[in-house]
C-alpha cells in the first residue's frame, strides 16, 4: 500500500488532495480548485477604455523594481483556475477511483474528467454532488461575464501566460500564479458541457451506503459535519479497513454531525483534517475594522465554550455588526462562502432584524440561489439533529422558506434582473458570490459601496483581505474578517484517536511538532509530507476467507504430532465478491478423488520401509546407492517378490519402478505410511 499527498490544500475552500494505492487500485481523494489564486486577476473593469489603456501601457510601466502592489499590477484577462499541480504528474488513466469529500473538493473534477484517458469511478455523496454541481454552474456563469468582456480565448493561450509577461508580475502575484516552484496555473474555465459530462460520471451515495468497487473494495461515506454532504470515507477490503478523515466538525448547526463512531475500529487512519493548525489562531480582525478590543474580549470569554456555541456566537457577532451598519445607513455585503454558514446567517440576521424591528430587505443575488435554497429544504437526511426535529414537527428545515414567503428575503439570479431593479432599496443586506471578490455580483456592489464608511463587507479569514480588496481601493467601507471551524480543533485530535483505536495513523509532517504521540502506545504513527510517497505496511497478514459449510463438513483432519498442528486439504471455487473472499463448493463434485499430487515430506528410513513392505506382502532387499554421490542417505530397495521391481529412495524423491500397477500402488501406500503427507 502506498500513500502520496499531492497537495495539503489551504483551508475550507481548498481541501487537501491525496492518492492512495490500495489492493492494486489508485484512489484519488478530492480534486479541488485553489480559488484564492483568482486574486491575481483584476475584477472586470468598469469601462472598457480603462482596460485597453492598461493593456497598452502595461509593458512600459512594469518594471522589476518591487513597490507596493496596486490595482494595475493585476492581470487583466479572463481568469484561469488553479488545479492541484502535482496531479498532472500522474497519468489520469491510472486513477481507478475518485472519492470526493465535500462540494469544494469537487470543483476541480471537470478539469480532470475532460482529460483524455480518464476512466475512474467517482463517488460523491448525493448532497455534496448536488451542491458542488450548483457551485460549478455558478462559477461558469460568473466566468461568462469575463468571456463576454474579453472575447473568446486565443488559440495560442492567453497573452499574460507568456513567459515575458509572467516575469513582469510583482513577486507576490507571481507566487500565487505560479506556485513556489514556478509551475503553471491550471487551466481555463470549463464549459457547462464539461460539468454535465463530469456529473454523468459520478456515482452518488448516501451516508452509510456501501458501494462495491470491482468486487474488492467496499467504499462507504460517513458524515464529517463540515458542510452539507461533506464526508469521511471508509475503504474496506479483505485485508482491513482504511479510514480517510477530512475536515470534520463535531457539532454543526446545519450538516449532520461528524460520525466518528462509524470510523471506530479502522486499521489505518489517513488523517487529512489539516485545518486544525489554522484554527488555533481563531477569529482575527483585519486592520480595516475598528472594534478590535470588543472582538478580542468576546473571543477570550468563549475560548472554553463548546464549539457549536462558539460558532453561533460568531454568527451572532456578524449579525450584530450588520445590524449596526444598516442602522447607520450603510449596506452590508456578505459574499457567499460556505453553504451551511450562509443558510444559518440568513436565519440569524432575520431574527436580529426582527428583534431590532428593522425592515431592511435581504437580497440574495446568485444564478443558482433559488435552486440551492429549494434543494436545501428537501434534504433532512443530510442535516443535523435539530434540523431533523424540524422535519418531524412539520416545520421547514431552514427558516429561509418562510422568510422568502414573507418577502423578507428576495432571491434574484443576477444584478441586472429587472425584478431586482424594481425592488432595490438601500440600505440593504446582500448575499452574493464570489468570496474571492473577483467574480459575480460582489464586484459591482463592492464598487458601489466601497466609498461608504457605514457599509460593511464580511470576509472569511482564509481570504487574503489585503489582496482581495486591492482593486477596490481606496476603500472606506468596513471590512469584518471572521473564521469558522474548518475541522477539528487540535486539542481534540488525541482524544479522538484514542476512541477510534486504529493500528496506524498517517499524519502530516507539520504536526510532528504540534501533536506529540510519544506517550501513545496503542497505535503507531507515520508522517507524510507533500509530494512524497509513503509505503504503508500490510495491515493484516492474511485476507479473511469464508469457507462454505458444505466444504467444511467434508474436512478430513490430520494431526501432525510433532508440531501440534491439525491440517486438512481444502478444495473449492474461490469467489471474490463484495470485498470478501468466499470458498464455495465446486460445481461438479464428481472429481472428488485426488487429482493433484499428494504432498509428502519426511525422510524414509530403509528399515521402516522394509517393515511396511513386508506387511503388505512385499519382500525385497536394501542396497546402498553408490551411483549418486550427492545423496549420501539414498538407498535402493530391490523387490523380488511378488514381482521384480525397484524403489529408489533419495533425499527429496522416491522413484518406484514396477511393471504391474497394483504392485506399484501398494508400494506407494507403504511409502505413504512412512512419510508425512497431506
Amino acid at each position, binding site marked *: 500500500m502506498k500513500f502520496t499527498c499531492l497537495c495539503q490544500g489551504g483551508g475550507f475552500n481548498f481541501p487537501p488532495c491525496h492518492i492512495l494505492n490500495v489492493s492494486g487500485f489508485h484512489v484519488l481523494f478530492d480534486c479541488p480548485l485553489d480559488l484564492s489564486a483568482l486574486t491575481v486577476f483584476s475584477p472586470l473593469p468598469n469601462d472598457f477604455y480603462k482596460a485597453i489603456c492598461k493593456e497598452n501601457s502595461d509593458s512600459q510601466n512594469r518594471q522589476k523594481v518591487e513597490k507596493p502592489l496596486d490595482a494595475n499590477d493585476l492581470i487583466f484577462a479572463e481568469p484561469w483556475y488553479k488545479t492541484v499541480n502535482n496531479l498532472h504528474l500522474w497519468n489520469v488513466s491510472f486513477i481507478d477511483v475518485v472519492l470526493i469529500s465535500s462540494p469544494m473538493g469537487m470543483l476541480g473534477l471537470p478539469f480532470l474528467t475532460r482529460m483524455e484517458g480518464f476512466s475512474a469511478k467517482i463517488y460523491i455523496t448525493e448532497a455534496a454532488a448536488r451542491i458542488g454541481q450548483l457551485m460549478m454552474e455558478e462559477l461558469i456563469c460568473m466566468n461568462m461575464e469575463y468571456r463576454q468582456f474579453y472575447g473568446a480565448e486565443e488559440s495560442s493561450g492567453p497573452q499574460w501566460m507568456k513567459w515575458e509577461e509572467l516575469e513582469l508580475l510583482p513577486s507576490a502575484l507571481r507566487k500565487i500564479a505560479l506556485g513556489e516552484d514556478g509551475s503553471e496555473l491550471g487551466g481555463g474555465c470549463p464549459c457547462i458541457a464539461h460539468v454535465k459530462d463530469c456529473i454523468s460520471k459520478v456515482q452518488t451515495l448516501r451516508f*452509510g451506503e456501501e458501494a462495491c468497487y470491482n468486487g474488492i473494495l467496499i467504499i462507504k461515506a460517513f458524515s464529517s459535519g463540515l458542510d452539507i454532504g461533506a464526508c469521511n470515507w471508509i475503504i474496506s477490503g479483505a485485508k482491513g479497513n482504511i479510514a480517510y478523515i477530512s475536515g470534520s466538525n463535531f457539532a454543526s448547526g446545519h450538516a449532520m454531525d461528524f460520525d466518528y463512531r462509524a470510523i471506530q475500529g479502522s486499521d489505518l487512519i489517513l488523517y487529512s483534517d489539516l485545518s486544525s493548525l489554522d484554527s488555533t489562531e481563531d477569529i482575527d480582525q483585519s486592520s480595516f475594522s475598528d472594534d478590535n478590543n470588543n472582538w478580542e474580549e468576546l473571543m477570550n470569554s468563549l475560548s472554553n465554550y463548546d464549539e457549536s456555541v462558539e460558532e453561533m456566537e460568531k454568527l451572532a457577532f456578524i449579525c450584530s455588526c450588520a445590524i449596526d451598519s444598516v442602522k447607520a445607513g450603510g449596506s452590508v455585503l456578505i459574499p457567499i462562502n460556505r453553504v451551511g454558514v450562509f443558510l444559518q446567517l440568513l436565519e440569524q440576521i432575520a431574527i436580529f432584524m426582527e428583534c431590532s424591528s428593522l425592515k431592511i430587505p435581504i437580497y440574495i443575488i446568485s444564478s443558482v440561489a433559488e435552486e440551492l435554497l429549494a434543494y436545501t429544504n428537501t434534504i433532512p437526511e443530510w442535516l443535523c439533529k435539530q434540523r*431533523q426535529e424540524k422535519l418531524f414537527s412539520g416545520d421547514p428545515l431552514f427558516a429561509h422558506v418562510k422568510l422568502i414567503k414573507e418577502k423578507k428575503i428576495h432571491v434574484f439570479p443576477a444584478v441586472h434582473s429587472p425584478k431586482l431593479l424594481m425592488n432595490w432599496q438601500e440600505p440593504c443586506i446582500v448575499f452574493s458570490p464570489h468570496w474571492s471578490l473577483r467574480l459575480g455580483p460582489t464586484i459591482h456592489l463592492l464598487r458601489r459601496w466601497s466609498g461608504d464608511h457605514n457599509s460593511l463587507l464580511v470576509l472569511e479569514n482564509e481570504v487574503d483581505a489585503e489582496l482581495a480588496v486591492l482593486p477596490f481601493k481606496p476603500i472606506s467601507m468596513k471590512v469584518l474578517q471572521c473564521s469558522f471551524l474548518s475541522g477539528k480543533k487540535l486539542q481534540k485530535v488525541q482524544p479522538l484517536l484514542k476512541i477510534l483505536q486504529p493500528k496506524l495513523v498517517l499524519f502530516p509532517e507539520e504536526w510532528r511538532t504540534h501533536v506529540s504521540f510519544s506517550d501513545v502506545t496503542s497505535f503507531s504513527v507515520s508522517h507524510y509530507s507533500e509530494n512524497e510517497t509513503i509505503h504503508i505496511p500490510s495491515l493484516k497478514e492474511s*485476507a479473511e476467507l469464508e469457507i462454505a459449510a458444505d466444504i467444511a463438513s467434508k474436512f478430513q483432519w490430520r494431526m*501432525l504430532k510433532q508440531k501440534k498442528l491439525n*491440517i486438512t486439504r481444502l478444495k473449492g*471455487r474461490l469467489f471474490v465478491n463484495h470485498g470478501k473472499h468466499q470458498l464455495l463448493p465446486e460445481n461438479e463434485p464428481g472429481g472428488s478423488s485426488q487429482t493433484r499430487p499428494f504432498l*509428502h515430506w519426511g525422510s*524414509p528410513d530403509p528399515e521402516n520401509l522394509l517393515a511396511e513392505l513386508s506387511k503388505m506382502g512385499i519382500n525385497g532387499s536394501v542396497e546402498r546407492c553408490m551411483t549418486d554421490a550427492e545423496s549420501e542417505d539414498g538407498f535402493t530397495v530391490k523387490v523380488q517378490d511378488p514381482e521384480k521391481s525397484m524403489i529408489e529412495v533419495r533425499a527429496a524423491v522416491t522413484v518406484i*519402478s514396477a511393471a504391474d500397477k497394483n504392485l506399484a500402488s501398494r508400494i*506407494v501406500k507403504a511409502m505413504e505410511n512412512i512419510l508425512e503427507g497431506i
Partner: protein
Amino acid sequence: MAIDCLVLGAGQEVGKSCVVVTINGKRIMFDCGMHMAYNDHRQYPDFSRISKSCDFNNAIDCIVITHFHLDHIGALPYFTEICGYNGPIYMTYPTRALAPIMLEDYRKVLVDRRGEVEQFTSDHIAECMKKVIAVDLKQTVQVDKDLQIRAYYAGHVLGAAMFYAKVGDSAMVYTGDYNMTPDRHLGAARIDRLQLDLLITDFDFHGICLVFQFTFCKCYNSEIEYRNSLFIDYAAAVSDTVDYIIVSYLISLPCPEMEALAFGLRSTYATTVRDSKYAREREFLKAAASSVLHTAVASILSFVVIIVVHKCVAGGGKVLIPAFALGRAQELCILLDDYWERMNLRVPIYFSAGLTIQANMYYKMLISWTSQKVKETYNAFDFKNVHNFDRSLIDAPGPCVLFATPGMLTGGFSLEVFKHWAPSEMNLITLPGYCLAGTIGNKLMSGNPTIELEGTKIDVRCQIHQLAFSPHTDGKGIMDLVKFLSPQHVILVHGEKPKMATLKERIQSELGIKCCDPANNESVCIPSTHYVKAGASDAFIRSCLNPNFQFLKSGSEEKSVSGSKCTEGTLPLWIKDERVAEGILVLEKSEKAKVVHQDELLLMLGEKRHEVQFAYCCPVNVDELEKFTTTSLTPTARMLRDPNKSSLIRLLVAKLSRKLSEGNIQDFGEHLQVESFHLSVCLKDTCPYRITNGLEDKPRTAFFCCTWSAADDKLARKIISAMENRDLVET
C-alpha cells in the same frame, strides 16, 4: 444455525403485520401493526408470545417499521408505552415524520366516534416517537456489533421500505408492502441482489384483477356500457398505440369479465383495434409488453378517476373522497391539481381539517423520496387549487371536491359529509383503495342502496366509484422479486390463505424455492448460512486466481459448433479455464485457522518436500510403431536402425494421439509430455527402470524411459499399455 420466525400478525390474514425473527441469537420485530376490523384483544398482536415474563427489552434487540400504515405501525405506541419496550426502533425519515400524524388521526377517530377508552394517548405517541432512530435508504445501520440492517426503497407509500437484516453470515429481507411498478408519485421498489436465507414478503390481497373491480353507478345500464364510456373518454386523450396496448392487455387477463370488457371495447374501437391484426400479435404482445402494461394500466386508471370526478363536478355535483391523512390523498391531489390547472377549472378542491395542508409540508420536504418525475419539479406539493374546508361549506351550493378523513368511511368527518351528500344523484363518492369488511365503505362497494347509520336509514343515490388502482404489489410483482433475490426460503404473510396458496405453489414449482405461509402465532424455523472463517495467505489467493487452462479436442457431442467449419485434421480446440482453489487449512492451537498454499505449508513446518514418482523403461517394437504409421512414412524412413530420437518421438506421438482420448500430448522433440508423464528415448544399455527382461534380444525394439508422479498414475498406465500394445489387438 437457523432462523426462527414467529408470525404474530398478518399470518394468512390481512391486518396487524408483525413478525418476530431470531437470527443467530438476535431478535428483530418487523412491523407492529393493528387490525382495523377488531375492537378486542385481536386488534393487537399477541405480544405475550415473545416473552412470557413480558421483559421485552431483553427479548427484542430492535423493532423495524416498514411504513406508516396503521396495519404496520398501529400497535407501536401500545407496545412501547403500555408494554414497556424501550429498545431502539428503526424506520425511514418519512415514516418517522408521518407516522405520528397517522397515529394521532386514528386515535382521534377512535375516541370521537366510538367513545372508546383510548389504548394510547397523544403523549404516548410522542414518547414512542422519541425512541425512533430514523434511517436513510441504503444506509447500513449497525444496530449493535453483530446486527446490521438496511432499508431499500419499496414504493407503495412515501417512505415505505423493505428491510434487510444480517447477523453473522445469515441474512434476510422483510418487504412490508411494496410495488414493483412506479405510480404517479412514487417510484418502483428497488433492491440490490443480495444473498439471502429468507425473504418474508407481503402477499397482498387485492392483486391486479381487483384493480378493475369497479362499483358501478346506477345511471349506466350495464358494466360494459359504463366501462366503455370511461374508455371512450380516455381514448380522446391518449394516442392509439397506448390504447392498443391496454386493450390487448385487458384481453390477456384470464378473468371472464375482462374478456367481456375487451369485447365491448373492440366493437367500439373498430378503428384502433383490428381483429385480424390483433389475432396475429396477441401472443407477441402478451409476452413482450407485460411489464410495460402494468404501468400503462396504472396510468389509464388514474385518468379514469379524473374523468369521473370531472364529470361529476361538471354536472354540478359534489365529490367526496374519504381518505386517510396521508398517502392516497396527496397522490390523488397531485393528479387533480394538475388536471385542474391544465383544464383551467375553477371548482374548488378542499381538504378537511384532519387532512391537511400541513401534511403537504411534509411531502415537500421529503420530495427526494418520491418518483423521479415529481422530484424534478420542486413545487409538486404546492397545490394551487386546494383550500381548507369549513364545516359550513357542507351544504353550500355548487360543485366541489372534498378530501376528508378517515378513509373507508369508518366515522368522523368523512361520514358526516357522507350523510349529507349521499342522497343526491348528482354527487359522487370516490373510495380510494380497499375497504375492510364491516365498514360503510365496504357496504357501498358491494352495492348497498340503503345504509343504516345510528338508527337512521340513508338512501344512497349518489354515484359510487372505487378508485381502481392499488399501490400494493401483485402476484407478478412478488414472483419478480422472489426470482430476482433468489433466497433460500420464502415466507408469505399479509394475505388471504387461498390466494397465497396458489402463489406458494408457483414459487415452489416455478422457482424451486421453499415457501411457506404460516398462520398467526405459528413459528417457522429455517436453516441458515454459516461460513467457517479462516485467514488466507496471499500465495493461496494468487494460486486460486491463476488461470487453469485445459485444452480439449472437440468431442463428438460438440461437433455442431456454429461457425467452425473445420477441415479434416484441424479439429477445433476447446479451451477450458476452470479455476479450482486448492490449499491446506492449518489449525494451530490457540491461533486462527489459516489457509495456505501447499508450498507454504512445508515452509511452516520447516520440512522439505519428498516426491513420490514412478519410473518405467518401456520397450516398444519399432516395426509395430512404423506399421501403425506407414501411411505417411515412405520406406526411406527405415533408417531407424540408427534410432533418431526425434523421429521416434514423433512416431510415438502420432500413435498415442490416435489411441488416447484424454490428455494433451506435447511433443518437445527430445521428449514428450502428457501432464506429469514424461517420456524420452532411453539409449542406456542397462537402465535401472528396465524391469521386464528378455525383450532386449528382439532386434527392433526401442526403449523409452518414462517417469510420472503418483497423481497421474492412471493416465500413465494407459499410455504405457498403448505403447506396449497391450490394449489393442493389431491385425
